[in-house]
């Protein structure tokens, strides 16, 4: 990563940033801190274009709303995966047509959106009005009739638990002429109509209050309830019809979808370009920015800057300075950057661990999944996915990594003799009468698990030692040689020593002379290592810190845990193999004949699909975990910021140069 500072003329600003966005390899820094220093504040001010940015943001959300509406009502089949479409510059211009026209089209459609939303609100209001009138359908007087010359006409509700008989009786006691009709009841309320003499109003109201009576609100409705309901129905029909028409409009607009998507992307690019100003400093005639540039893009960047008459400086960052991180690896390794991405970018002080662990990831994934059939499916599906969909970014890397891991799965399946578990054996036994077994190239871990356990732990030990080695490299690179000795090399001595001491006798069986020497070497290595761990700290530490070495020595126990953690390579490998066999065996129990064969196929397909998904997931998680916890734990911290260059961050189309298509 190189640091880039540029001064240019205001009149070149637009065209320069247009080109830098196309170039896509320059990250701009925030400049607000500079303005806090006096020297900068005196000569330059903050550039900025917040108004335009917010206008464009508002516009973007309108375009998005239009696109959402089209998607909602468009009946055409949608692609399985949303990927950016690759188009040439010329095709893009063709699709977009004139931006002005596209804008007015979006304006027209957005107005339709609003009308549709209004209709939706109206529909809700009508429906709630209908719901409130429903209980009153039995009431056939006009709603506006509230009184006659001598009588009040009232509608209202009392709670469902209220005793309607008691109410009737109490009312008839004060006024014989009153009429109380119960129009209906539901779980919550009883709906009443009440006619009473004006003269009795006071006493009747008192009685009603004690029963929790509440007057019904009909707002300004006139006519009978059924008339009103009919009217509302008609209104609802009308609103629905309007919505249908609008929806039809959107369906027709689906033909314009691509154009609107292009327009959306145009607006995004315009917005991002307007946003650039926030990161610039300006004087009357000139602008200034600084930022980052990947080393290998230097020459191209120079060309662009020269063409726009800019003054610029490209420098190597100071030692220890934090820079944004861009992972750059060979194409075989690139997919495994997924694993690093998902953890954390390396800080600029660290090295990118991807090339080192990618081989182990490949290895571990295969060991834990270990089946020829599953490997073929995984690779097949992933390679097909890469071919059919133009995936980008993390999704692309992940799918490609899984495709590679499928190859590893196949290889380990071959070594362990597993093809959909033991499907060939079961099928040949059940349906052809004589069992065929595929013999493993290496050995069958189900019958000799201890061998694989030892192998797993050895591989794990190597993995961990490499991790520790990287730590030594980083320490030595930074000139801390003594730290490297204390943290790494004496540990190597101790651990190798212990391993030789314990297992040296079984490395070369039947040769006591050699094993004796090995054990002896192991003993001395372990002693040197332990002495180094305790002694170096005692010499280098201060005060009570001198004794820390003893505590560090105790850390050797964590190595036992770390190495045993790799036993999951065996356990998960067994899990996927044995469960595959379980399903085969279940299918095989059906017996012989055609029907049994059909049953077998059904059980095998469902069972293996299930086993495939659950174990692919488990394998992915545990292969990652071995990197994150065991391997990274030895040297890696991460915490770098990913490189985020100025570029055309479009959503729907990706404009590519002519020659690429």
């Amino acid at each position, binding site marked *: 990563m190189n640091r880039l500072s540029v001064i240019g003329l205001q009149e070149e600003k637009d065209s320069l940033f247009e080109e830098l966005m196309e170039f896509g390899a320059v990250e701009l820094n925030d400049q607000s801190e500079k303005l806090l220093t006096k020297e900068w504040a005196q000569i330059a001010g903050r550039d900025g274009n917040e108004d335009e940015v917010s206008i464009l943001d508002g516009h973007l959300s309108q375009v998005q709303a239009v696109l959402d509406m089209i998607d909602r009502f468009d009946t055409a089949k949608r692609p399985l995966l949303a990927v950016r479409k690759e188009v040439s510059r010329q095709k893009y211009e063709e699709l977009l047509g004139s931006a002005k026209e596209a804008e007015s089209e979006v304006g027209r459609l957005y107005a339709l959106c609003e009308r549709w939303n209004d209709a939706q609100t109206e529909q809700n209001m009508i429906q709630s009005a209908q719901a409130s009138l429903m209980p009153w359908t039995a009431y056939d007087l006009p709603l506006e009739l509230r009184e006659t010359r001598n009588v009040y006409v009232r509608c209202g509700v009392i709670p469902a638990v209220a005793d309607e008989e008691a109410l009737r009786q109490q009312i008839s006691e004060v006024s014989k002429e009153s009429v109380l009709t119960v129009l209906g009841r539901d779980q919550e309320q009883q709906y009443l109509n009440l006619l009473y003499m004006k003269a009795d109003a006071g006493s009747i109201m008192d009685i009603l209050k004690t029963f929790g009576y509440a007057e019904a609100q009909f707002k300004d409705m006139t006519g009978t309830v059924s008339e009103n309901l009919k009217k509302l129905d008609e209104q609802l029909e009308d609103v629905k019809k309007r919505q249908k028409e609008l929806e039809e409009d959107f369906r027709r607009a689906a033909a314009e979808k691509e154009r609107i998507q292009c327009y959306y992307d145009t607006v995004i690019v315009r917005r991002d370009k307007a946003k650039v100003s926030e990161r610039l400093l300006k004087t009357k005639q000139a602008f200034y920015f600084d930022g980052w540039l990947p080393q290998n893009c230097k020459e191209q960047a120079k060309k662009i800057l020269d063409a726009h008459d800019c003054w610029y400086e490209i420098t190597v960052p100071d030692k220890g300075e934090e820079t944004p991180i861009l992972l750059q690896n060979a194409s075989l390794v690139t997919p495994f950057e997924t694993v690093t991405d998902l953890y954390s970018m390396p800080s600029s002080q660290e090295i990118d661990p991807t090339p080192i662990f990618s081989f182990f990831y490949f290895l571990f994934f295969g060991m834990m999944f270990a089946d020829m059939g599953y490997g073929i499916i995984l690779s097949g599906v992933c390679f097909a996915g890469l071919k059919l969909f133009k995936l980008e970014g993390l999704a692309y890397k992940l799918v490609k990594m899984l495709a590679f891991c499928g190859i590893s799965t196949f290889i380990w399946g071959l070594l362990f003799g597993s093809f959909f578990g033991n499907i060939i054996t079961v099928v040949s036994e059940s349906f052809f009468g004589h069992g065929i077994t595929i013999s493993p190239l290496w050995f069958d871990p189900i019958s000799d*698990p*201890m061998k694989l*356990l030892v192998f797993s732990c050895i591989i794990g030990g190597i993995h961990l030692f490499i991790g520790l080695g990287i730590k030594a490299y980083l320490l030595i690179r930074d000139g801390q040689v003594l730290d490297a000795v204390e943290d790494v090399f004496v540990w190597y001595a101790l651990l190798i020593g212990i391993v030789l001491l314990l297992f040296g006798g079984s490395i070369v069986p039947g040769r006591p002379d050699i094993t004796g020497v090995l054990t002896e070497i192991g003993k001395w290595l372990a002693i040197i290592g332990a002495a180094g761990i305790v002694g170096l700290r005692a010499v280098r530490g201060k005060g009570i810190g001198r004794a820390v070495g003893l505590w560090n020595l105790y850390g050797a126990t964590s190595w036992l845990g770390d190495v*045993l953690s790799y*036993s999951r390579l065996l*356990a998960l490998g*067994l*899990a996927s193999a044995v469960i595959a066999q379980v399903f085969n*065996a279940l299918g095989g129990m059906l017996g012989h004949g055609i029907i049994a064969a059909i049953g077998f196929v059904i059980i095998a397909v469902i069972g293996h699909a299930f086993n495939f998904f659950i174990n692919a997931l488990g394998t992915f998680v545990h292969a990652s975990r071995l990197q994150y916890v065991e391997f990274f734990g030895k040297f890696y911290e991460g915490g770098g910021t990913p490189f985020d260059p100025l570029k055309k961050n479009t959503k729907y189309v990706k404009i590519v140069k002519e020659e690429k298509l």
Partner: protein
Amino acid sequence: MSLGLALAVIGAAIAALAGVGSGIGVGIAGEAAAGVIAEDPKKFGQTLVLQALPGTQGIYGLLMAFLILTKIGMLGGTPVDLTWTQGLYLLACGIPVGVVGIWSAIAQGKTVAAGIMLIAKRPGELAKGMIYGAMVETYAVLALLISFLMYNAIQL
């Protein structure tokens, strides 16, 4: 049927009990996931991945139960005449994966439920949620391994 055979079948039953833990664990995670989906349906795939994690203990249990049943000839074979010592031995084989499975799956369910909450707020951190879940899973894997090694060491 001999006592030994019955004991071995009990062992298989204990192993399969790991499914209790998985059921509870997956349930806990599912509750959390449904809450997140209510806010943002696009996260269905991510939450499903996390929800599936506590399901593995049940599978390990199934695996061990199946192995034991096959060894004693209860599945597609003639039942072996076990001594009660052999039966007790096979019963012991079922215990690690069954017992560890139950509690580790419940704990893992809680962990991934928290992970689901994590991706609700920070969609980019799925991997970290998964790793926290995998930390719990380790012990179920170790239990499966021990069960398997015990099982593998006996010849009938």
